[in-house]
Protein backbone atom coordinates (compact mmCIF):
# COMPACT_ATOMS: atom_id res chain seq x y z
CA UNK A 1 0.00 0.00 0.00
CA UNK A 2 1.40 3.39 -0.93
CA UNK A 3 1.69 6.33 1.44
CA UNK A 4 -0.88 8.28 -0.61
CA UNK A 5 -3.61 5.61 -0.25
CA UNK A 6 -6.84 7.03 1.14
CA UNK A 7 -10.13 6.08 2.75
CA UNK A 8 -13.33 8.11 3.17
CA UNK A 9 -13.35 9.52 6.69
CA UNK A 10 -14.48 12.47 8.79
CA UNK A 11 -11.72 15.06 9.31
CA UNK A 12 -12.17 16.58 12.79
CA UNK A 13 -11.34 20.12 14.02
CA UNK A 14 -8.44 18.77 16.14
CA UNK A 15 -6.74 17.29 13.07
CA UNK A 16 -7.68 13.68 13.77
CA UNK A 17 -9.87 11.65 11.39
CA UNK A 18 -12.96 9.63 12.28
CA UNK A 19 -14.17 6.48 10.52
CA UNK A 20 -17.59 6.73 12.23
CA UNK A 21 -19.75 9.69 13.24
CA UNK A 22 -21.53 8.90 16.51
CA UNK A 23 -23.41 10.97 19.06
CA UNK A 24 -21.72 9.70 22.23
CA UNK A 25 -23.85 9.49 25.36
CA UNK A 26 -21.54 9.15 28.37
CA UNK A 27 -22.77 8.33 31.87
CA UNK A 28 -20.38 9.77 34.47
CA UNK A 29 -21.26 6.96 36.87
CA UNK A 30 -23.06 3.59 36.94
CA UNK A 31 -26.09 5.40 38.45
CA UNK A 32 -26.70 7.33 35.21
CA UNK A 33 -25.98 4.41 32.84
CA UNK A 34 -29.61 3.39 32.19
CA UNK A 35 -30.66 6.95 31.32
CA UNK A 36 -27.65 7.25 29.00
CA UNK A 37 -28.53 3.97 27.26
CA UNK A 38 -32.16 5.09 26.72
CA UNK A 39 -31.05 8.42 25.25
CA UNK A 40 -28.63 6.69 22.85
CA UNK A 41 -31.26 4.10 21.86
CA UNK A 42 -33.61 6.89 20.77
CA UNK A 43 -31.18 7.82 17.97
CA UNK A 44 -29.81 4.34 17.16
CA UNK A 45 -27.55 3.49 15.41
CA UNK A 46 -26.01 7.01 15.47
CA UNK A 47 -26.28 7.12 19.26
CA UNK A 48 -23.65 5.22 21.22
CA UNK A 49 -23.78 4.90 25.00
CA UNK A 50 -20.86 3.94 27.25
CA UNK A 51 -22.54 2.10 30.12
CA UNK A 52 -19.95 1.30 32.81
CA UNK A 53 -19.79 0.06 36.38
CA UNK A 54 -17.65 2.77 38.00
CA UNK A 55 -17.53 6.53 38.53
CA UNK A 56 -17.84 6.50 42.33
CA UNK A 57 -16.35 4.52 45.24
CA UNK A 58 -12.92 4.82 43.64
CA UNK A 59 -9.65 6.35 44.83
CA UNK A 60 -6.37 7.49 43.30
CA UNK A 61 -5.08 5.79 40.17
CA UNK A 62 -8.26 3.71 39.79
CA UNK A 63 -10.45 6.83 39.79
CA UNK A 64 -8.10 8.61 37.38
CA UNK A 65 -8.16 5.67 34.96
CA UNK A 66 -11.97 5.70 34.82
CA UNK A 67 -12.03 9.45 34.32
CA UNK A 68 -9.30 9.49 31.68
CA UNK A 69 -10.87 6.62 29.73
CA UNK A 70 -14.26 8.37 29.58
CA UNK A 71 -12.57 11.68 28.67
CA UNK A 72 -10.63 9.92 25.89
CA UNK A 73 -13.90 8.67 24.35
CA UNK A 74 -15.38 12.21 24.58
CA UNK A 75 -12.51 13.48 22.40
CA UNK A 76 -12.38 10.46 20.05
CA UNK A 77 -12.45 11.16 16.29
CA UNK A 78 -15.23 8.58 15.70
CA UNK A 79 -17.50 10.86 17.77
CA UNK A 80 -19.27 13.90 16.26
CA UNK A 81 -21.05 15.19 19.37
CA UNK A 82 -21.23 14.34 23.07
CA UNK A 83 -23.94 14.26 25.75
CA UNK A 84 -22.66 13.74 29.29
CA UNK A 85 -25.29 12.22 31.58
CA UNK A 86 -24.54 12.94 35.24
CA UNK A 87 -26.36 11.98 38.40
CA UNK A 88 -25.10 14.96 40.39
CA UNK A 89 -23.24 13.65 43.44
CA UNK A 90 -20.67 11.34 41.83
CA UNK A 91 -16.87 11.58 41.69
CA UNK A 92 -16.39 11.66 37.90
CA UNK A 93 -16.78 15.31 36.98
CA UNK A 94 -19.23 15.93 34.15
CA UNK A 95 -17.75 19.35 33.38
CA UNK A 96 -14.26 17.97 32.75
CA UNK A 97 -15.65 15.25 30.44
CA UNK A 98 -17.49 18.01 28.57
CA UNK A 99 -14.22 19.99 28.41
CA UNK A 100 -12.49 17.00 26.78
CA UNK A 101 -15.14 17.03 24.03
CA UNK A 102 -14.91 20.80 23.66
CA UNK A 103 -11.11 20.73 23.37
CA UNK A 104 -11.54 18.31 20.44
CA UNK A 105 -13.97 20.80 18.85
CA UNK A 106 -17.16 18.77 19.39
CA UNK A 107 -20.58 20.12 20.39
CA UNK A 108 -21.37 18.91 23.93
CA UNK A 109 -24.16 19.22 26.52
CA UNK A 110 -24.58 17.95 30.08
CA UNK A 111 -27.82 16.44 31.41
CA UNK A 112 -27.87 15.89 35.20
CA UNK A 113 -30.56 13.61 36.58
CA UNK A 114 -30.80 15.37 39.99
CA UNK A 115 -30.99 18.80 38.31
CA UNK A 116 -33.52 17.78 35.65
CA UNK A 117 -35.71 16.18 38.33
CA UNK A 118 -35.61 12.42 37.85
CA UNK A 119 -35.27 9.70 35.23
CA UNK A 120 -38.26 10.68 33.07
CA UNK A 121 -37.36 14.34 32.70
CA UNK A 122 -33.63 13.67 32.26
CA UNK A 123 -34.30 11.03 29.59
CA UNK A 124 -36.71 13.33 27.72
CA UNK A 125 -34.26 16.25 27.88
CA UNK A 126 -31.41 14.02 26.73
CA UNK A 127 -33.39 12.64 23.79
CA UNK A 128 -34.30 16.16 22.70
CA UNK A 129 -30.60 17.14 22.65
CA UNK A 130 -29.62 13.85 21.02
CA UNK A 131 -32.03 14.46 18.11
CA UNK A 132 -30.62 17.97 17.59
CA UNK A 133 -27.05 16.62 17.64
CA UNK A 134 -27.90 13.73 15.28
CA UNK A 135 -29.30 16.22 12.76
CA UNK A 136 -26.33 18.54 13.18
CA UNK A 137 -23.61 15.88 12.69
CA UNK A 138 -25.45 14.28 9.75
CA UNK A 139 -24.31 17.31 7.73
CA UNK A 140 -20.69 16.11 7.89
CA UNK A 141 -19.66 14.31 4.70
CA UNK A 142 -17.00 11.66 4.28
CA UNK A 143 -13.89 12.91 2.47
CA UNK A 144 -10.75 11.22 1.14
CA UNK A 145 -8.27 11.02 4.05
CA UNK A 146 -4.75 9.56 4.08
CA UNK A 147 -4.30 6.10 5.62
CA UNK A 148 -1.48 7.66 7.65
CA UNK A 149 -4.24 9.17 9.82
CA UNK A 150 -5.32 5.68 10.94
CA UNK A 151 -4.48 4.07 14.27
CA UNK A 152 -5.28 0.37 13.97
CA UNK A 153 -5.82 -1.75 17.07
CA UNK A 154 -4.83 -5.41 16.63
CA UNK A 155 -6.42 -7.93 18.94
CA UNK A 156 -7.01 -11.68 19.23
CA UNK A 157 -9.53 -13.61 21.28
CA UNK A 158 -10.77 -17.17 21.48
CA UNK A 159 -7.44 -18.22 19.96
CA UNK A 160 -6.70 -21.70 18.71
CA UNK A 161 -3.92 -23.28 16.66
CA UNK A 162 -5.04 -21.43 13.51
CA UNK A 163 -4.56 -18.00 15.14
CA UNK A 164 -0.77 -18.23 15.24
CA UNK A 165 -0.56 -19.98 11.84
CA UNK A 166 -2.95 -17.92 9.74
CA UNK A 167 -5.02 -15.01 11.04
CA UNK A 168 -2.40 -13.35 13.26
CA UNK A 169 0.35 -13.45 10.59
CA UNK A 170 -2.15 -12.05 8.01
CA UNK A 171 -2.98 -9.17 10.39
CA UNK A 172 0.75 -8.70 10.99
CA UNK A 173 1.30 -8.10 7.28
CA UNK A 174 -1.47 -5.48 7.27
CA UNK A 175 0.13 -3.88 10.36
CA UNK A 176 3.52 -3.68 8.61
CA UNK A 177 1.95 -2.23 5.44
CA UNK A 178 -0.05 0.38 7.38
CA UNK A 179 3.08 1.39 9.31
CA UNK A 180 5.00 1.62 6.00
CA UNK A 181 2.32 4.03 4.76
CA UNK A 182 2.78 6.26 7.82
CA UNK A 183 -0.04 4.87 9.98
CA UNK A 184 0.01 3.57 13.53
CA UNK A 185 -0.69 0.17 15.09
CA UNK A 186 -1.43 -0.62 18.73
CA UNK A 187 -1.03 -4.00 20.46
CA UNK A 188 -2.39 -4.59 23.99
CA UNK A 189 -2.75 -7.59 26.29
CA UNK A 190 0.54 -7.61 28.17
CA UNK A 191 -0.08 -11.13 29.56
CA UNK A 192 -0.14 -12.37 25.97
CA UNK A 193 3.27 -10.88 25.25
CA UNK A 194 4.75 -13.02 28.07
CA UNK A 195 7.07 -15.50 26.34
CA UNK A 196 7.41 -13.40 23.18
CA UNK A 197 8.69 -10.15 24.70
CA UNK A 198 12.21 -10.83 23.41
CA UNK A 199 10.93 -10.57 19.80
CA UNK A 200 9.26 -7.19 20.40
CA UNK A 201 12.16 -5.86 22.50
CA UNK A 202 14.53 -6.68 19.61
CA UNK A 203 12.41 -4.39 17.42
CA UNK A 204 12.30 -1.49 19.90
CA UNK A 205 13.30 1.91 18.52
CA UNK A 206 15.45 2.62 21.59
CA UNK A 207 16.95 0.65 24.49
CA UNK A 208 14.69 2.64 26.84
CA UNK A 209 11.56 1.50 24.95
CA UNK A 210 12.79 -2.11 25.11
CA UNK A 211 13.37 -1.79 28.86
CA UNK A 212 9.96 -0.18 29.30
CA UNK A 213 8.28 -3.14 27.55
CA UNK A 214 10.17 -5.70 29.66
CA UNK A 215 9.30 -3.78 32.86
CA UNK A 216 5.57 -3.80 32.05
CA UNK A 217 5.58 -7.53 31.18
CA UNK A 218 7.47 -8.31 34.43
CA UNK A 219 4.96 -6.29 36.46
CA UNK A 220 1.99 -8.20 34.98
CA UNK A 221 3.74 -11.53 35.56
CA UNK A 222 4.50 -10.52 39.18
CA UNK A 223 0.85 -9.50 39.72
CA UNK A 224 -0.32 -12.91 38.49
CA UNK A 225 2.32 -14.73 40.58
CA UNK A 226 1.39 -12.76 43.72
CA UNK A 227 -1.84 -14.79 43.76
CA UNK A 228 0.24 -17.94 44.39
CA UNK A 229 -1.39 -19.70 41.44
CA UNK A 230 -0.34 -21.05 38.04
CA UNK A 231 -1.30 -18.49 35.36
CA UNK A 232 -2.45 -21.50 33.33
CA UNK A 233 -5.73 -21.18 35.28
CA UNK A 234 -6.60 -18.37 32.83
CA UNK A 235 -3.71 -18.19 30.31
CA UNK A 236 -4.13 -20.02 28.06
CA UNK A 237 -7.91 -20.12 28.68
CA UNK A 238 -9.67 -23.52 28.90
CA UNK A 239 -10.90 -23.02 25.32
CA UNK A 240 -7.39 -22.14 24.10
CA UNK A 241 -6.12 -25.39 25.69
CA UNK A 242 -8.88 -27.47 24.03
CA UNK A 243 -7.89 -25.73 20.79
CA UNK A 244 -4.33 -27.07 21.12
CA UNK A 245 -2.47 -24.22 22.89
CA UNK A 246 -0.39 -25.62 25.75
CA UNK A 247 1.32 -22.68 27.51
CA UNK A 248 1.15 -18.89 27.69
CA UNK A 249 4.51 -18.78 25.86
CA UNK A 250 2.99 -20.64 22.90
CA UNK A 251 -0.09 -18.42 22.90
CA UNK A 252 2.03 -15.26 23.10
CA UNK A 253 4.37 -16.28 20.28
CA UNK A 254 1.33 -16.78 18.04
CA UNK A 255 -0.43 -13.65 19.28
CA UNK A 256 2.53 -11.32 18.78
CA UNK A 257 2.48 -12.02 15.03
CA UNK A 258 -0.42 -9.54 14.88
CA UNK A 259 1.98 -6.69 15.51
CA UNK A 260 3.84 -7.32 12.25
CA UNK A 261 7.22 -8.82 11.62
CA UNK A 262 9.42 -5.77 11.13
CA UNK A 263 7.69 -2.52 12.21
CA UNK A 264 9.68 -0.88 15.00
CA UNK A 265 8.24 -0.67 18.51
CA UNK A 266 8.14 3.08 19.08
CA UNK A 267 6.37 3.44 22.42
CA UNK A 268 4.82 1.69 25.42
CA UNK A 269 1.85 3.59 26.88
CA UNK A 270 -0.59 3.25 29.78
CA UNK A 271 -4.20 2.08 29.54
CA UNK A 272 -6.32 4.32 27.25
CA UNK A 273 -3.43 6.83 27.05
CA UNK A 274 -3.07 8.79 23.77
CA UNK A 275 -1.26 6.92 20.98
CA UNK A 276 0.92 9.57 19.39
CA UNK A 277 3.70 7.57 17.68
CA UNK A 278 3.52 6.30 14.10
CA UNK A 279 4.53 2.65 13.76
CA UNK A 280 3.94 0.24 16.64
CA UNK A 281 2.80 1.14 20.16
CA UNK A 282 2.25 -1.40 22.93
CA UNK A 283 -0.52 -0.47 25.39
CA UNK A 284 -0.63 -1.75 28.96
CA UNK A 285 -4.01 -3.53 28.91
CA UNK A 286 -5.21 -6.76 30.50
CA UNK A 287 -5.93 -9.82 28.37
CA UNK A 288 -9.71 -9.66 28.88
CA UNK A 289 -10.97 -8.86 25.37
CA UNK A 290 -13.48 -6.11 26.12
CA UNK A 291 -11.26 -4.24 28.60
CA UNK A 292 -8.40 -4.45 26.13
CA UNK A 293 -10.38 -3.15 23.11
CA UNK A 294 -11.94 -0.42 25.30
CA UNK A 295 -8.45 0.78 26.24
CA UNK A 296 -6.97 0.73 22.74
CA UNK A 297 -9.95 2.62 21.24
CA UNK A 298 -9.65 5.09 24.15
CA UNK A 299 -6.03 5.63 23.09
CA UNK A 300 -7.29 6.82 19.71
CA UNK A 301 -7.58 3.67 17.57
CA UNK A 302 -10.38 4.28 15.04
CA UNK A 303 -10.69 0.62 13.97
CA UNK A 304 -9.88 -2.82 15.36
CA UNK A 305 -8.88 -6.01 13.56
CA UNK A 306 -9.73 -8.93 15.84
CA UNK A 307 -8.59 -12.47 15.04
CA UNK A 308 -10.33 -15.51 16.47
CA UNK A 309 -9.99 -19.27 16.17
CA UNK A 310 -12.95 -20.40 18.25
CA UNK A 311 -15.18 -17.41 17.37
CA UNK A 312 -16.22 -14.43 19.51
CA UNK A 313 -18.78 -11.63 19.12
CA UNK A 314 -16.96 -8.65 20.77
CA UNK A 315 -17.56 -5.16 19.36
CA UNK A 316 -17.12 -1.60 20.64
CA UNK A 317 -19.58 1.31 21.03
CA UNK A 318 -17.75 3.68 18.65
CA UNK A 319 -15.12 1.71 16.68
CA UNK A 320 -15.71 -0.96 14.02
CA UNK A 321 -14.24 -4.34 15.03
CA UNK A 322 -13.38 -6.54 12.03
CA UNK A 323 -13.47 -10.29 12.83
CA UNK A 324 -11.13 -12.57 10.97
CA UNK A 325 -10.63 -16.31 11.43
CA UNK A 326 -8.25 -18.91 10.07
CA UNK A 327 -10.53 -21.74 11.22
CA UNK A 328 -12.83 -22.90 8.40
CA UNK A 329 -15.24 -24.56 10.85
CA UNK A 330 -15.60 -21.36 12.89
CA UNK A 331 -16.12 -19.32 9.70
CA UNK A 332 -19.04 -21.66 8.96
CA UNK A 333 -20.50 -22.15 12.45
CA UNK A 334 -20.12 -18.50 13.51
CA UNK A 335 -20.71 -16.95 10.10
CA UNK A 336 -22.84 -14.11 11.46
CA UNK A 337 -19.92 -12.93 13.63
CA UNK A 338 -17.26 -13.32 10.94
CA UNK A 339 -16.13 -10.62 8.50
CA UNK A 340 -13.25 -12.43 6.82
CA UNK A 341 -12.32 -16.10 6.42
CA UNK A 342 -8.59 -16.68 5.89
CA UNK A 343 -8.67 -20.45 6.48
CA UNK A 344 -7.22 -20.88 2.98
CA UNK A 345 -3.83 -20.10 4.54
CA UNK A 346 -4.09 -23.30 6.62
CA UNK A 347 -5.45 -25.43 3.75
CA UNK A 348 -2.78 -23.90 1.47
CA UNK A 349 -5.32 -22.59 -1.05
CA UNK A 350 -4.43 -18.93 -0.36
CA UNK A 351 -1.07 -17.30 0.34
CA UNK A 352 -0.51 -15.11 3.39
CA UNK A 353 0.08 -12.14 1.09
CA UNK A 354 -3.18 -12.70 -0.79
CA UNK A 355 -5.09 -12.95 2.51
CA UNK A 356 -3.38 -9.77 3.72
CA UNK A 357 -4.43 -8.01 0.47
CA UNK A 358 -8.07 -8.94 1.14
CA UNK A 359 -7.82 -7.85 4.77
CA UNK A 360 -6.25 -4.50 3.81
CA UNK A 361 -9.07 -3.90 1.31
CA UNK A 362 -11.64 -4.81 3.99
CA UNK A 363 -10.02 -2.40 6.47
CA UNK A 364 -10.19 0.48 3.96
CA UNK A 365 -13.81 -0.34 3.07
CA UNK A 366 -14.85 -0.58 6.73
CA UNK A 367 -13.05 2.67 7.56
CA UNK A 368 -14.98 4.23 4.66
CA UNK A 369 -18.31 3.21 6.19
CA UNK A 370 -19.03 -0.49 5.57
CA UNK A 371 -20.72 -2.10 8.60
CA UNK A 372 -18.87 -4.90 10.36
CA UNK A 373 -20.58 -8.05 11.63
CA UNK A 374 -20.27 -6.76 15.22
CA UNK A 375 -21.92 -3.45 14.26
CA UNK A 376 -24.70 -5.24 12.38
CA UNK A 377 -25.41 -7.45 15.41
CA UNK A 378 -25.37 -4.53 17.86
CA UNK A 379 -22.24 -5.67 19.72
CA UNK A 380 -21.10 -2.56 21.66
CA UNK A 381 -19.21 -4.11 24.56
CA UNK A 382 -17.46 -1.61 26.81
CA UNK A 383 -15.52 -2.22 30.04
CA UNK A 384 -13.02 0.09 31.72
CA UNK A 385 -10.05 -1.63 33.34
CA UNK A 386 -10.03 -1.31 37.15
CA UNK A 387 -6.78 -0.98 39.09
CA UNK A 388 -8.36 -1.43 42.52
CA UNK A 389 -11.44 -2.87 44.16
CA UNK A 390 -14.39 -0.54 44.77
CA UNK A 391 -14.04 1.24 48.10
Amino acid at each position, binding site marked *: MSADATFLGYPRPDGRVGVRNHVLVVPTVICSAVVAERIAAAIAPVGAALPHLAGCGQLGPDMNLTHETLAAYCGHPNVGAVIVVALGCEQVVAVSLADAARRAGKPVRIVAIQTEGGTVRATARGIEIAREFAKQIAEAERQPCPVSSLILSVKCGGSDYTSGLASNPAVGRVADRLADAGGAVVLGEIAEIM*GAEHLLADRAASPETARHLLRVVSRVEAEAMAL*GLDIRGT*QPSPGNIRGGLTTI*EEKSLGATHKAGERTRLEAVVGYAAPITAKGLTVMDTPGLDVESVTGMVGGGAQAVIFTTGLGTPTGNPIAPVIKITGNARTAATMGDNTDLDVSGIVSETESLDAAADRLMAELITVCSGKETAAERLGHREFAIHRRNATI
Partner: protein
Amino acid sequence: MNAALVISDRDNVATALDALDAGRELQLGGRTVLVAETIPRGHKIALCAIAAGDPIVKYGSPIGRASADIAAGTHVHTHNVASARGRGDLAASGPQ
Protein backbone atom coordinates in the same frame (compact mmCIF):
# COMPACT_ATOMS: atom_id res chain seq x y z
CA MET B 1 -2.47 -29.74 2.46
CA ASN B 2 0.11 -31.32 4.77
CA ALA B 3 -1.24 -33.34 7.68
CA ALA B 4 0.95 -31.40 10.09
CA LEU B 5 3.03 -28.25 9.96
CA VAL B 6 6.54 -27.51 11.24
CA ILE B 7 6.87 -23.72 11.57
CA SER B 8 10.63 -23.26 12.20
CA ASP B 9 13.69 -25.46 11.52
CA ARG B 10 14.48 -25.19 15.23
CA ASP B 11 11.12 -26.68 16.33
CA ASN B 12 10.86 -30.11 17.98
CA VAL B 13 7.08 -30.25 17.59
CA ALA B 14 4.66 -29.98 14.66
CA THR B 15 1.01 -28.81 14.66
CA ALA B 16 -1.57 -31.34 13.39
CA LEU B 17 -3.74 -29.65 10.74
CA ASP B 18 -6.21 -32.53 11.01
CA ALA B 19 -6.64 -35.34 13.53
CA LEU B 20 -3.75 -37.81 13.12
CA ASP B 21 -4.33 -41.54 13.68
CA ALA B 22 -1.76 -43.82 15.33
CA GLY B 23 0.36 -45.82 12.89
CA ARG B 24 0.47 -43.14 10.19
CA GLU B 25 3.89 -42.18 8.83
CA LEU B 26 4.54 -38.48 8.17
CA GLN B 27 7.40 -36.64 6.51
CA LEU B 28 7.96 -33.65 8.81
CA GLY B 29 10.87 -31.23 9.00
CA GLY B 30 13.08 -33.50 6.93
CA ARG B 31 12.45 -36.65 8.95
CA THR B 32 9.99 -39.52 9.10
CA VAL B 33 7.73 -39.46 12.14
CA LEU B 34 5.54 -42.44 13.08
CA VAL B 35 2.35 -41.22 14.78
CA ALA B 36 2.31 -43.14 18.08
CA GLU B 37 -1.13 -42.12 19.36
CA THR B 38 -4.13 -40.10 18.20
CA ILE B 39 -3.29 -36.39 17.91
CA PRO B 40 -6.37 -34.11 17.91
CA ARG B 41 -6.60 -31.44 15.21
CA GLY B 42 -4.64 -28.35 16.20
CA HIS B 43 -2.59 -30.17 18.82
CA LYS B 44 1.15 -30.88 18.75
CA ILE B 45 3.14 -34.01 17.93
CA ALA B 46 6.76 -34.60 19.02
CA LEU B 47 9.19 -34.77 16.06
CA CYS B 48 11.83 -36.53 18.18
CA ALA B 49 12.32 -37.86 21.69
CA ILE B 50 12.32 -34.97 24.20
CA ALA B 51 13.77 -35.64 27.66
CA ALA B 52 12.06 -34.36 30.80
CA GLY B 53 13.34 -30.86 31.52
CA ASP B 54 14.23 -30.10 27.89
CA PRO B 55 12.63 -27.14 26.12
CA ILE B 56 9.67 -27.60 23.78
CA VAL B 57 10.36 -25.39 20.75
CA LYS B 58 7.68 -23.96 18.43
CA TYR B 59 7.91 -20.81 16.26
CA GLY B 60 11.67 -21.26 16.84
CA SER B 61 11.27 -20.21 20.50
CA PRO B 62 10.80 -22.17 23.75
CA ILE B 63 7.14 -22.56 24.75
CA GLY B 64 7.85 -24.47 27.99
CA ARG B 65 9.72 -27.54 29.25
CA ALA B 66 8.90 -31.23 29.08
CA SER B 67 7.52 -32.27 32.48
CA ALA B 68 8.04 -35.96 31.54
CA ASP B 69 10.03 -37.86 28.92
CA ILE B 70 8.21 -37.47 25.60
CA ALA B 71 8.61 -40.13 22.89
CA ALA B 72 8.78 -39.22 19.20
CA GLY B 73 5.35 -39.26 17.56
CA THR B 74 3.38 -38.72 20.78
CA HIS B 75 0.98 -35.99 21.86
CA VAL B 76 2.64 -32.89 23.35
CA HIS B 77 0.27 -30.88 25.54
CA THR B 78 -0.53 -29.81 29.12
CA HIS B 79 -0.04 -33.35 30.48
CA ASN B 80 3.67 -33.38 29.58
CA VAL B 81 4.63 -29.70 29.16
CA ALA B 82 5.10 -27.17 31.96
CA SER B 83 5.11 -23.44 31.34
CA ALA B 84 8.04 -21.49 32.74
CA ARG B 85 6.06 -18.26 33.11
CA GLY B 86 3.57 -16.88 35.62
CA ARG B 87 4.13 -19.84 37.97
CA GLY B 88 2.83 -18.36 41.22
CA ASP B 89 2.10 -21.94 42.31
CA LEU B 90 5.82 -22.79 42.26
CA ALA B 91 6.76 -19.53 43.98
CA ALA B 92 4.18 -20.27 46.70
CA SER B 93 5.55 -23.80 47.33
CA GLY B 94 9.12 -22.56 47.71
CA PRO B 95 12.27 -23.13 45.63
CA GLN B 96 12.12 -26.24 43.45
